[in-house]
């Protein structure tokens, strides 16, 4: 039998899981540091040592975890913390859709790989042709998961050594973190508009509602993106 001619377009450079680990190494250092910060914040928000580690392993989404912990710490209710955190993580649904197109194999494998989606691993996994490289996603995601969860564990113990996180200015590190994560997101005009609207809604509600409610209400600003262009 004759071989079929090789008419398919050449595969883009094959990347390995290790390539993903390498690509994520610099941001992995930051993930450990932020993990430590989260561990410290979670402890100061009244969490046990185990809860923040379990949360880092299962939720694996920095801003949602910071939001949930700080809302609980600020006296906000469970529902407010859950809604704010889940809303913050809804973007992973969209990222999951873009990843879905390159995932094969049994359902549990696809679901498991999807757990490695975070902003950074998803960004690293982008290929030039606009598709996702699953090897890069898995390599980067695993490194970030280990760094983030390990950092959290360290932070929950270091929290005892650090008498007052506020004296180290750690409370200011969190808004700076969110600003730094927001920064690359607002290049597009409509997304900048959504950010401004979100901030205005939060500011307007803060004097009147409990902690966390302004954040949930600010999510409505995403409807700016639903306008017909």
């Amino acid at each position, binding site marked *: 039998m004759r071989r079929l001619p090789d008419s398919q377009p050449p595969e883009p450079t094959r990347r390995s899981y290790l390539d993903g680990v390498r690509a994520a190494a610099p941001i992995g250092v*930051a993930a450990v*540091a932020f993990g430590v910060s989260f561990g410290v914040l979670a402890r100061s928000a009244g969490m*046990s040592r185990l*809860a923040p580690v*379990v949360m880092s392993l299962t*939720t694996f989404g920095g*801003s949602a*975890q*910071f939001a949930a912990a*700080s809302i*609980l710490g*600020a*006296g906000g*209710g469970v529902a407010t*913390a*859950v809604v704010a*955190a*889940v*809303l*913050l*993580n*809804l*973007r*992973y*649904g*969209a990222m*999951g*859709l873009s990843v*879905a*197109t390159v*995932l094969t194999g049994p359902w549990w494998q696809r679901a498991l790989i999807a*757990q490695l989606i975070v902003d950074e691993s998803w960004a690293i996994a982008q290929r030039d042709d606009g598709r996702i490289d699953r090897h890069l996603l898995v390599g980067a995601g695993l490194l970030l998961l280990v760094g983030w969860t390990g950092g959290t564990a360290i932070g929950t113990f270091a929290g005892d050594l650090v008498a007052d996180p506020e004296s*180290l200015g750690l*409370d*200011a*590190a969190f*808004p*700076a*973190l*969110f*600003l*730094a994560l*927001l920064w690359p997101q607002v290049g597009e005009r409509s*997304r*900048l508009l*959504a*950010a401004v609207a979100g*901030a205005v809604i*939060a500011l307007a509600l*803060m*004097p009147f509602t*409990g*902690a966390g409610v*302004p*954040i949930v209400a600010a999510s409505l*600003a*995403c*409807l700016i*993106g*639903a306008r017909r262009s």
Partner: protein
Amino acid sequence: MSAVWITVIVVGLATIAVKAAGPLLVAARTPPPRAQSALEHLAPALLAALVVTQTLGGGNGGFAIDPRLAGLAAGAIALLLRAPLLLVITVAAVAAALVRLIA
């Protein structure tokens, strides 16, 4: 069960479901463009709200002006100077700590 554990478990399960939803349910299909666009605007809206509430939020709701504001300003300057993420956070923390020390 404590408020903390309920939050950890519910948020964890919800996040796992959100992340897995695409690969499990929607094979090689994207949501309607307007819904997709709204989702893409959720992150900037929520992150901006978090910057505001984390900087100005009081312990029991309302506003509180304190050294966090100085820290955020210092962090923003570091961002403008294209400092890496880790440095931005460090600068903000150090600035807030210094202001708190002096005040």
